[in-house]
């Protein structure tokens, strides 16, 4: 957890994939909730951040169970939509893995070593496969802005809020939206 400094993550756009400090976040020192729980207060939120290409994204830390390197064995699910990579076995529990690149309509990077951000949603375990993982980023709720309307298609669909930083933005990913929960609107029709 030595890399959990807040000030280093201000310029994601300047950073190339090879620079990322994700190497510090191996499977054993994945983000654990209890270490950072004391930093959260009512007006503060914390995000686990990760990268897709040069874009910095984040999900609320309390929804993240752990971060692990992408599993070798993922069982594909025939008939599922293409962003669903499949199911993996995480210590006896079954996790549905979504490739965030595919979800966002961005092509895969060859020879990459993606990471899986394991998210607990209700009774389910879900995983976002991302290029690499950043830090835990605390911020005050007041710093969160409504996502600009100019955000492009796929991105706009999954991000409702953004965090403005010294240099650049962090997009707050909505877990409900990205995994397509509540896809039925009030009339019971599918979106």
């Amino acid at each position, binding site marked *: 957890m030595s890399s959990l400094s807040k000030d280093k993550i201000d310029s994601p756009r300047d950073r190339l994939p090879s620079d990322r400090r994700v190497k510090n976040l191996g499977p054993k020192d994945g983000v654990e909730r209890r270490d950072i729980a004391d930093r959260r207060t009512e007006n503060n939120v914390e995000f686990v951040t990760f990268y897709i290409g040069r874009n910095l994204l984040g999900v609320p830390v309390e929804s993240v169970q752990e971060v692990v390197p992408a599993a070798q*064995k993922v*069982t*594909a*699910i*025939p*008939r*599922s939509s293409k962003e*669903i990579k*499949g*199911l*993996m*076995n995480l210590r*006896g*529990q*079954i996790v*549905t893995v979504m490739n965030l690149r595919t979800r966002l309509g961005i092509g895969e990077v060859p020879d990459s070593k993606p990471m899986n951000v394991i998210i607990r949603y209700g*009774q*389910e*375990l*879900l995983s976002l496969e991302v290029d690499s993982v950043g830090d835990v980023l605390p911020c005050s709720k007041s710093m969160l802005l409504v996502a600009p309307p100019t955000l492009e298609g796929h991105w706009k669909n999954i991000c409702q809020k953004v965090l403005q930083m010294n240099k650049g933005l962090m997009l707050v990913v909505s877990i409900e939206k990205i*995994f*397509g*929960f509540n896809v039925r609107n009030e009339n*019971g029709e599918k979106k």
Partner: protein
Amino acid sequence: MDNAELLDDFLTECNENLEQIDNDLVHLEQNPSDLDVIKKIFRSIHTVKGASGMFGLSRLEKVAHAAEDVLNKMRDGGIAPSSQNIDPILKAVDIIKGILAHLGEHKEEPEGDDSLVIRALVAVLSGEATNLENATPPASSESLETAEGASSPSARSAAQKTKSAPAETTLRVHVDVLDRLMNLVGELVLNRNQLVQLIRGVDESEFHNPINQLDRVTSSLQESVMKTRMQPIGVAWGKLPRIVRDLSANSGKKLNLIMEGQDTEVDRQILQAIQDPLLHCVRNSADHGIENPQQRAAASKNPEGNICLRAYHEGGLIVVEVQDDGKGIDAEVIRRKAVERGLVSSEAAAHLAPAEVLRFIFEAGFSTAQEVTEVSGRGVGMDVVKSNVEKIGGNVDIFSEVGKGTTIRITIPLTLAIISALIVRVGDDPLDVFALPQSSVLELVRITPDNSDSIERVENSKFLRLRDSLLPLIDLRKILELGDSDNLSDAGEFSIVVCQIGDSRFGLIAREIFDTQEVVVKAPGHYLKEIQVYAGATILGDGRVILILDIGRISEMGLSAVANSTDQTTAGADEIKKLENSDKTQLLLIRSTKNNPMAIPLALVSRLEEFDSSRFERADGKNFVQYRGALLQVLSVDDTWMPPSEGVVPAIIFSDGEKSMGLAVNKIKDIVAANLSVESSGKSQGVLGAAIVDGEVTEVVDVYSYLLKAFPDWFANRKLGATKQKKKILLVEDSPFFRDMIRPVLESQNYFVKTACDGAEGLKILSSDENFDLVLTDIEMPNKDGWDLMRDIRSTQRFDNLPVVAMTTLNDESSRAKAVDLGFTKYLIKFDQDELLSAIEEKIL
């Protein structure tokens, strides 16, 4: 063993006995003549009394003693087991339970005065049951009064079934031990996996054999340990008959409790978690759902209300339903209350469908009861039920119809449930491995180049010819979109998994079949549910995740994909389809040569062929084709039909023993499952009746009339010759289809045939003074089955010499032996016409 341990053992045993006593007493009330139950209750109470004397528990001893005396006299017939007489015993049992509970916690008897109950018991003993009211403490007098008022407070219980619980082969084990075992086995499995990994790739190793052995043993151990945690759901229902009985007595309502599916096994944890929610639902039904007898009578309903508890497996889930036939819930009342409580704005509420409105019942503090009653109005409501069920990953739904009743459906994922699954490879990729629930699998058929001609094709659909029936085939690879596989010959050897869902049988095409494993079903997540073809997922011994296929869904998709795919897969329509599927016959849909849509029961079809028009030969005004070394006559619904000058003619081949015929059609369209409703009156020639297919009336071909047309001398060798007197046959058969198929066959043999649709009707006809020469009966029938009919016939002297022939699909040794025992003249398997006729001929003369 010290005294404290002894006491613990005593308490455990007593508690088990008493749990049973409640049900037994309720059972006794309804079956007063059941001496065995009285004896059993007596024994339980006697044990309590005996042991309490040993431990010096004087209070317990006195109460048990008084109850024992009453039971003793009841056993000897001195006292009737009426509800007045049983009430004080139940009271005594309650007191005994209270004392035992206190004993468990404090290791000593609580203080208390039981003289009232003892006096009541003594009064019963001396035949002064009417003094009971005075002898009972005021607080509970009401319940006793109402119990007397209602002449038969009937809580129909599962006592009958639960009483046969196997006691002698079980052993009590502390749950902690099981949990620890489970964890240890988990670790062992990991170790095993490492070892297996180590020797993989090593060709020659002395470790191979021992590790393989270890592998197998570990797997069996894991399965066995997992099974120890399963319990029948009936365990969670044990208390309910007594509770319903008491509610019945307290409220003056007449309540029946019906339990179905007690044997459904669930994991121990789940069992515990749903116990309280279920209890609450049952109380709700009794208290708010069922009306009092006057209201029920006014609504012209049976004054006795029914509460039905039902448990069953469905698509990888366990469903538990609590259904009542009470007054139902008025969605409008809920709508109003929801708005009053500010749960929803009045505009939004107005737009909600009734089903959505009902869900407000699950909001905290939402009660619709007009008044708070002792039973279920303590401010704890359905919200608690819902949150408890959701805690274990379940779901609660409510369905209600005003005036008809309410159903609460609790769906629990089989998170830990274990099923036996067949592991198959579906696609060409070695990773395309899936599990099929073994419960739907009937048999496996291996297709090699040698027997590949047993696969028939119609357009894009394939069928398997299996013992003279045609099974529609569903290619799993196609369903799972793992590649286009129309060309089966590519696959070389492959396997067909023959499955049955409801009445429909079909084959699933798989590339390779591995083995059967017991797997732990993990509930399908959000994504798997959306895709619908999966019942869940599981982790194999080697850590691989594989998907479990939902055979029911796949059959719906596969069999309708065979059709011209009129896609109307809204959730609701699917539900209805599922419900209706139970009573259906598989029909081959064709267009006749007159281009009419017609249907043929698939069971009667032997093969499907396509004949090139050049192969047709004409002789004597009939059409023939050289087929399998013989001349096959090809008929059509239209007598004037001629084969076209070119192209191919699809034909359906019917075979009966050596004889075959073809029916030419314009097109073979589809295979569907539909309800056959055969009406015998007003049908045109060659038509058996009609079936509703996709909402349209479709004529069903009378195959036997065509067989007769092709072979007018079909039955010639069996004609009755000189016997001019028509012999009379009673045909008892519940299926209209078989009835209408067999009848003409018999009539063609100059028999007089009378039909009955079940054993009861058959017996009625027999009892009226018609003299039958033979009875031909099905075995499995509603109302009165063939066995019972036979018993009745053989117990009537008049029928001593009446030949009775059974004709059934029950083709097993025990049924045959039973038939001989009961005195059936002949036992035939449906449906070999030659065999039937020769048997009748033999027996009737």
